[in-house]
């Protein structure tokens, strides 16, 4: 692998990491509250506003239904508004986040649902408000699952970030497509895929470790 390619791969790795972790962080910040809201409004013993839960579910499903490449383009004006430009790595974080938020919301919801009702009861019985139920029971008890879900989300983002090449975001996936798929440069493709495998495995290993420590 020539020096030039090594440099390309190195830059692309940074770009991928930037996109994945930035949008992953935003996915948690946006998706977790949505998931919690969806859950607590659906439960009789908490907020009991099934209509709101349904509404949120609908919005989330609608966002998830739009193919990412279309979302990418439809969101260009929004991206420009938020990021100042519609092109490049930083700009790609906007559509990636907007795709990842509903995705993580659904994944987080699965884990939150599994929390033993007895623990919600316990916090309620102590005189905990509904907010405290979320803070002391739902989130901490679901944490191993939430982390595992985040791991899945991050890896999915690695895949999605490849498509962000469409708006000039660069990154490993884009490099693999450009050199590997479009130019049949097997060396580059394999080395890029190798780096991708390392990135994915590191994310997975880190996620597993954190989840295990919490369990």
């Amino acid at each position, binding site marked *: 692998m020539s020096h030039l390619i090594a440099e390309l791969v190195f830059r692309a790795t940074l770009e991928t990491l930037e996109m994945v972790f930035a949008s992953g962080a935003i996915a948690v910040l946006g998706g977790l509250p949505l998931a919690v809201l969806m859950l607590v409004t659906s439960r009789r013993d908490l907020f009991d506003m099934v209509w709101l839960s349904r509404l949120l579910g609908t919005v989330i499903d609608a966002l998830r239904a739009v193919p990412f490449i279309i979302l990418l383009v439809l969101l*260009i004006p929004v991206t420009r508004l938020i990021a100042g430009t*519609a*092109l490049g790595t930083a700009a790609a974080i906007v559509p990636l986040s907007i795709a990842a938020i509903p995705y993580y919301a659904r994944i987080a919801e699965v884990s939150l649902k599994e929390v033993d009702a007895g623990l919600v009861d316990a916090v309620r019985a102590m005189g905990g408000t509904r907010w405290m139920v979320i803070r002391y029971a739902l989130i901490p008890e679901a944490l191993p699952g939430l982390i595992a879900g985040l791991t899945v989300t991050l890896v999915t983002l690695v895949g999605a970030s490849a498509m962000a090449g469409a*708006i000039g975001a660069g990154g490993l996936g*884009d490099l693999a497509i450009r050199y590997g798929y479009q130019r049949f440069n097997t060396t580059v493709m394999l080395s890029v895929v190798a780096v991708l495998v390392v990135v994915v495995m590191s994310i997975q290993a880190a996620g597993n470790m954190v989840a295990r420590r919490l369990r």
Partner: protein
Amino acid sequence: QSNTTLRIGIMSGEDEDIWRIVSTNASKSGLTLKIVTFSDYSTPNQALSEGDLDANAFQHGPFLKAQSEANGFKITPVGNTYFAPMGLYSHRWKSLQDLPPNASIGVPNDPSNEGRALLLLQTLGILKISSSAGLLPTALDITDNPRNISIRELDAGVVGRALTDLDAAVVNTEWAQKAGIDTIKERIGEETLQNNPYVCFIATNAKDASAAWVKPLVSAYQQPNTRQALLDVYHGAIVPAWT
């Protein structure tokens, strides 16, 4: 001449190598080129018209026309780059006449390539396309299909590789070479080079068409070293389109 920085949108792939040379050429005339690569055909024009780019170089006239009509872009060509001929290839059949009824023919599925491929098939007398479809027809615009050919719309990078699964396929020469097709022996039809509208060019927003940096940019491209690079990089699959 003052140092100007330009953002140029191109498609990812071998073009990046060409533009690396162009960048070097341009720096001699005081231009710093920032190359932005795209893997999707729809975004570079939008990015250009919205000012995220100063120029782009990836398209031919029919494609630009269609995009401008749909989106109201005010983009004009400022200098030719190259011409990439298309051919009809087959592993199974020796000539056009051998193509059986109900044969399947693969075409690229992106708007400009698909239209061009269908028009090639029309030129070869395999089918007829509605005249109202203009330069960007799709399989839906076929009006006459005497041999009941089935058109398979595939990703430009896939058509060549999938030739085994097809009776024939229309493939850009560059892709055909990469897919391991013998572009001479397996070709059963090709584009006529005369008056071909599919010459690629550098484009800018109409308001910038006479900007001071346009000429140096175009001439940075139309250099002998670029010509050589085009021939090398694409292994003869494309033809430089300037004299």
